[in-house]
């Protein structure tokens, strides 16, 4: 998988032209051509993110608060009562 890096485009005049992401292959040359630009590090990839359990229709779980519903009707009621009140 291709890596990308955030780079702040700080101009020699001091003007900050914002942050862009640059592919790893182009990073070295880009920073060489623009010595005032700052490498802010790799675009973060959260490797520890755990996929939450799937919502099983009929014995659902509220995606907003984790409420465990008895069935779909209960889940629908919970949605209206708790998240639209």
């Amino acid at each position, binding site marked *: 998988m*291709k890596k990308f890096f955030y780079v702040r485009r700080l101009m020699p005049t001091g*003007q900050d032209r*914002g942050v862009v992401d640059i592919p790893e292959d182009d990073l070295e040359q880009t920073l060489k051509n623009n010595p005032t630009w700052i490498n802010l590090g790799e675009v*973060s990839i959260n490797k520890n*993110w755990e*996929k939450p359990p799937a919502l099983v229709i009929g014995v659902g779980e509220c*995606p*907003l608060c984790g409420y465990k519903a008895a069935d779909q009707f209960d889940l629908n009621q919970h949605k*209206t009562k708790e998240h639209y009140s």
Partner: protein
Amino acid sequence: MRIIGLMVCGPNEADRYLEGSLKEFKRLCDDAIIATNNADSKTIELIRSYGFWHYPDNREWGLYQPDIKTTLLEKVGRLNPDWVIALDSDEVFAPEFTRAEAERLAKTKEIAFNFLVVNLYNDPDHFTHGPGIQRFWNIRFFKFLPEMGLTYQKKRLHCGLAPPYAYHHGWHAPYYLEHYGLMKAEDRARRVERYQKYDPNAKFKGKVYYDDLGKELKPYIFDRKKLLEQLANSTDCQPR
């Protein structure tokens, strides 16, 4: 295949274009979560009437936009999506982009799709394409891949509707997306005010875009059928 919609919706959208965007979720998605940002009760009631999930996230939009969107995408993950459709509350797809088409695109090797965003101008039958306000490609449909990171780009404004992996690897769908948010002059004026507050030195987007918001640009006739033909024949939209 399970497709989930996501949207962040601001105040007073019920009186603007929100319903059109909710209808898109209804016809394309299995379910959707909408985070409201300081929304009024009429807007929340409209979302409720469509049966989608809703929660308020009232952090200041111009400062915490990437965090608000990251939180939302994590919640979307709890609905176990295969793919995600992300929309703003003033956007609708070309009607030719159907659920069947979404599934066909999802079955290719791509992991994200850009749509050609057309900024409608003055009325729904015209658009503009100036140096700043342009037709541009932007991600609206992407595979849910939490292992590639769900954190949105850390830009207070213009951080996109998908996490960076979708932008880095996205390809082009042969469809346009109609954007109503800049159509009326008063909406453009409101944006000028917002950006003057949150991005006075044009750090997050080119100054020419902000300048265009305050100008009266040339409108062009929006020929939807012709544009679809052009996109279908465009090299950018062919499978790679």
